[in-house]
């Protein structure tokens, strides 16, 4: 039923059909009238059929011509409407902007004018929508990129914060390590202090022992000197004995001389003299022995004195050594004290640093929280921007659904 469809869709055709049907009805009515009026006359003629045929044919031809003309006329009159209809259809299908030519000033013309105006409006609206949606899209993409940057920046920030926090924690652990080491140093320094003090005590003991040795040695030296004096005295006594023996010898010699001078009478006396001399000689011999022993004793005493001197010298050297050791120990003590002080300072400093580090960590955590908030906010913004962007996309889709045709 294509034809039927065609007639259903085309107003012009329907109108034409209606007009033609009306014309035909009119014509038939005319014919009927004519027939009614003139039929009897007509029927009388022989050319009735021919006339009827001519009339019918003429009627048909006229109707045809009438149809065509009417159709054309209606089409021409309805052309703007067609245009409007096709323009609207095209607009519905996406092409907007087909202006309608205004041919007349009647309703169709005013429709065309109004339609044109409406088209202008629509085009303007669409353009605005385009523009707005483009701008919106741009803005939302700007916002998106900005938020992306922000997000990436926030991520970097978070990463830096994490790094910094990690570094700070490492630092804090390092400082803890340093504080521990400093404490160890203090402990070791105190132990060294103890050792050095006990060393000093040992040095003092050594010094006092050496003083004892010295005093003992001096006592020994004094005793040896007394011994020497005693042997001097003994030597003196020996000298006295020696001189007595010498004098006795002289006496004995004198006696012998007297005995010799006395001759025979003195023979007995010379024996006495000889005995005396022998006694004196034995005394001299004994004193010589004693003297030899005394010399030995004296030399032994001298050796003892010398060795005591050696010992004293060694003791002196020992005392000096002990003094040197004492000095070194004093220096060590000083250094240890300095070390302790320095270690304590280090400990205090690391404590301060640890506090500072903790503060930094706390600040970093706050910054991290803020960054998180920022990130959340920017995520919100991003989602809003996305919504905006999708809205823009929608509106741009809406806009791009219409393809504006210039001109007309």
């Amino acid at each position, binding site marked *: 039923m294509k034809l039927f469809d065609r007639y259903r869709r085309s107003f012009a055709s329907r109108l034409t059909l209606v007009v033609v049907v009306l014309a035909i009805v009119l014509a038939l009515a005319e014919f009927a009238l004519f027939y009614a009026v003139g039929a009897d006359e007509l029927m009388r003629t022989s050319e009735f059929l021919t006339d009827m045929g001519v009339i019918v044919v003429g009627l048909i031809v006229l109707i045809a011509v009438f149809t065509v003309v009417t159709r054309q006329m209606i089409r021409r009159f309805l052309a703007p409407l067609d245009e409007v209809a096709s323009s609207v259809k095209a607009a519905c299908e996406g092409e907007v902007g087909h202006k309608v030519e205004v041919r007349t000033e009647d309703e169709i013309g005013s429709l065309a004018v109004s339609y044109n105006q409406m088209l202008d409006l629509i085009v303007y609206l669409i353009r605005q929508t385009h523009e707005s949606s483009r701008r919106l899209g741009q803005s939302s993409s700007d916002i998106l990129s900005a938020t992306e940057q922000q997000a990436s920046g926030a991520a970097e920030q978070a990463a830096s914060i994490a790094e910094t926090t990690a570094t700070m924690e490492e630092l804090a652990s390092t400082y803890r390590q340093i504080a521990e080491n400093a404490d160890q140093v203090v402990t070791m320094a105190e132990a060294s202090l103890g050792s050095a003090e006990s060393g000093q005590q040992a040095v003092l003991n050594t010094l006092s022992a050496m003083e004892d040795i010295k005093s003992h040695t001096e006592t020994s030296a004094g005793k040896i000197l007394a011994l020497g004096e005693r042997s001097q005295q003994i030597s003196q006594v020996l000298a006295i004995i020696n001189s007595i023996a*010498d004098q006795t010898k*002289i006496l004995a010699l004198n006696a012998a*001389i007297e005995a*010799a001078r006395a001759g025979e009478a003195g023979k007995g006396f010379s024996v006495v003299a000889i005995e005396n001399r022998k006694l004196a000689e034995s005394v001299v011999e004994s004193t010589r022995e004693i003297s030899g022993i005394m010399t030995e004793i004296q030399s032994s005493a001298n050796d003892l004195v010398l060795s005591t001197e050696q010992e004293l010298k060694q003791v002196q050297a020992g005392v000096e050594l002990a003094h040197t050791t004492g000095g070194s120990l004093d220096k060590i003590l000083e250094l240890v004290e300095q070390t302790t002080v320095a270690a304590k300072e280090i400990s205090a400093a690391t404590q301060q640093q640890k506090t500072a580090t903790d503060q930094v960590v706390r600040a970093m955590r706050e910054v991290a929280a803020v960054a998180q908030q920022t990130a959340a906010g920017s995520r919100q913004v991003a989602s809003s921007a996305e919504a905006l962007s999708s809205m823009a996309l929608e509106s741009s889709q809406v806009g791009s659904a219409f393809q504006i045709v210039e001109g007309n």
Partner: protein
Amino acid sequence: MSNTPKNDDQLASDLEVLERRAVSLARVNDEDEVFEGRSLLLFRIADEWYAVDAGDVREIFQDYMVMPVPCVPAFILGVVNVRGEILSVTDPATMMGLGAVTGDGVTIPPAVVIANAEVVTAMIVDEIGDIVEVAKGAVEPPVSIIDRAQAEFVAGSVFVNDRMVGLLNIARVLEPIGA
């Protein structure tokens, strides 16, 4: 001998000495017939030992004080007081031209008092030795090595105690000056 009372030990030793003396006394009488000798007192001047007849010696002493006398020959050192008697002190070494008796460093060397009929002098020496008995025939003429200057003073030599000892010529020593 001292006058102090003796204890038993001293008495015992005295008795011992007296016993020995008695024994040797007995022997001396035996030896007297065999041994005819003369006593010589030995003394040393410098490195040489000399001897003098014991009969010429009066005594020996040491520890004395010499009083110098002016304007006397060099070998006369001065005078000395011996138990109240004034004796001259002579130096035999100077007399013999041997230098001077030094006494081995001792300030007062021992002196031997020699005397003859006219003169007495104390002769200082370096050291006094023993009195020895020599046989009468043991004295020999002086050894030729002795210096000529000393020759007049040394009468002979005798071998005693493993050394040659010069016997002093007392007559020459005690010869008065200018005589």
